[in-house]
């Protein structure tokens, strides 16, 4: 069954941008990196739309999102950031009062966000994809290329660890 595919990347950006941002933010706690991820994913989606084979658009998009996220993690690992004296630290921009970020809403759920960041990345990702993004186990399995049993196990162990941290 062929589902309707968004015809252009502007539509994708509008519909999915916020979800991608929240996926990255809950995984990293870093607003600047999360915004970068949104742009990188949209770029890749735009490039890939022409050769996209109709199937599961959600699955395709979340695979791209996850790969872009992993690529960024690997890039940072390979090439340590070298700050030049006149290079503006992006954290400064994100933290400045003039930045249009919803500080009020960010302060809610700080405990949970901190607890999430203590989870091993596989567990954290599984929990975020399930409870923040709202994907089903089958969709998470497709996005992360692991069996559904592994998805279920990671979500369960992630939640148990959250319970331990939060208590």
């Amino acid at each position, binding site marked *: 069954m062929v589902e309707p595919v968004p015809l252009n990347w*502007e539509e994708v*950006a*509008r519909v999915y*941008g*916020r979800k991608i*941002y*929240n996926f990255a*933010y*809950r995984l990293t706690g870093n*607003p600047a990196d999360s*915004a970068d991820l*949104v*742009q990188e994913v*949209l*770029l890749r989606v735009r490039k890939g739309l022409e050769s996209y084979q109709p199937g599961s658009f959600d699955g395709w998009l979340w695979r791209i999102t996850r790969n872009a996220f992993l690529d960024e993690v690997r890039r940072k690992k390979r090439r340590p950031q070298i700050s030049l004296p006149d290079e503006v630290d992006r954290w400064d921009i*994100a933290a400045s009062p003039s*930045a*249009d*970020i*919803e500080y009020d*809403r*960010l302060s*809610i*759920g700080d405990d*949970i*966000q901190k607890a*999430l960041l203590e989870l091993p990345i596989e567990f954290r990702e599984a*929990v975020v994809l*399930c*409870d*923040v993004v709202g994907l*089903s*186990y089958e969709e998470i399995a497709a996005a992360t290329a692991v069996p559904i049993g592994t998805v*279920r*196990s990671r*979500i*369960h*162990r992630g*939640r*148990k660890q*959250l*319970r331990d941290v*939060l208590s």
Partner: protein
Amino acid sequence: MRHAGDTISAYLDGELRPEEVHRLLEHLASCGRCSAEMTALQGVRSSVRSLPMIELPRGTLPEAEVTPIPLRRNRGFIAAVAAAVVAAVIGIAALVTPPPESISVEDLNSRFGARLSLDPAFGPAKVLVPETVELQR
């Protein structure tokens, strides 16, 4: 006695078949430990699900930067400006480089090795140091 394990989470997420739900609920009726875990994880799950959806910061989507142009202006010019802004922000630049004149097996091995370093089996079972190297480059 075998405990419920991760079927608890699967149940909370609606991922169990009806017969599995039945079996789980039967187990919970007589297992205090699993019942307590169910309650605890239900709370954890709710907490994560209640995290607010954060709005995209301004400037993440480049089109948000392009302000609406009054209808009086020339549409062709507007489209070009908008496209230029989008392209500049995204930074799409196609550089065409001429193909290399030759490929050495060392360069091929380098690519294989780089991809190998991302293989789950990467490690002592897959390490290789080439014995001979083409010294004429």
